[in-house]
């Protein structure tokens, strides 16, 4: 459970941040709106579920692993690596939450613009949209880096 859900979390986070979102943002606003409408809720649901499953099963794994316990975190080489991985994973989880909120705002901005096709776009609304998109990109990249740190430190913990 820990490894499969963790793999999905890592892969999806990197896929979204490095590949899908930059490509969609380089296309038309209409395309971005359609894709966001179709995928943003699904993405949040799948990725958040995978993250929760990974973190919870990770704690269970530490508790159940022979000769290891939660109190070992930060103590030995193994404990230090697992602690770094855990902190990176938790940070990624919260950042992914912020990214989800920013995506929801962007989707609502698109939906309100779509409901009112006669509305003219003001420089302020364009600026706000650009700000959301920039924030989303930064959060996505940060999230991708953090999940790579988490998986890397945990993968080598036994050998440190």
């Amino acid at each position, binding site marked *: 459970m820990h*490894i499969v859900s963790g*793999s999905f979390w*890592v892969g999806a986070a990197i896929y979204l941040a490095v590949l899908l979102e930059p*490509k*969609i943002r380089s296309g038309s606003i209409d*395309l971005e709106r359609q894709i966001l409408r179709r995928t943003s809720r699904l993405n949040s649901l799948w990725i958040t579920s995978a993250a929760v499953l990974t973190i919870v099963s990770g704690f269970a794994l530490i508790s159940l692993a022979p000769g290891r316990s939660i109190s070992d975190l930060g103590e030995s080489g193994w404990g230090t690596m697992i602690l770094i991985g855990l902190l990176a994973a938790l940070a990624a989880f919260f950042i992914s939450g912020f990214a989800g909120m920013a995506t929801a705002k962007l989707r609502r901005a698109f939906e309100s613009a779509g409901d009112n096709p006669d509305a003219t776009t003001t420089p302020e609304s364009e600026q706000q949209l650009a700000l959301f998109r920039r924030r989303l990109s930064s959060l996505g990249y940060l999230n991708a880096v953090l999940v790579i740190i988490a*998986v*890397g430190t945990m*993968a080598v913990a036994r050998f440190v």
Partner: protein
Amino acid sequence: MDAEIIILRLLHIVPGSVWVGSAIFLAWVLQPAIAKTGPPHSGAVMANMVKPIVILLHSTAWITMVFGVVMAFRVPGRQPLFDNLWSTDWGTMIWLGFLFAVVGYALGFAGGINSKKMMDIGKTLTGPPTPEQAGQMAGYQKRAMMLTKVASLLVVAAVVVMALAQHV
């Protein structure tokens, strides 16, 4: 600290996670969502996305498999590899995982070929597709989606058996 194993594990596990996660995300989340969006948006996304997807999936798959094989020859306590591979439960799980990974990669590759064929028909269109072209495109899309789903399940199976190998 075993620096060689640490480096090999990083080069095997990090790209492996990206490969598996991307494959699941593509097969079960993105492709169905794009198919529901329908033309012209689905075509625009796919035209933009196919090349980077191919680069990401192929490169992560190859790095994972190559460093996995190298690591198998270096795992302490499991040498000589070929003796352990056929005579221990660990070995059975490892070659089974390798087999799942290779078949999953091949099926994903076949799915990519079908997506490309669908896009090639799309590129030749100057107006709405004829019923025959639409039928061909739908056939390629359906086959590509099915193949990528099976491929993603196989790479998940590969991860599962390899993760369990040391505990059986």
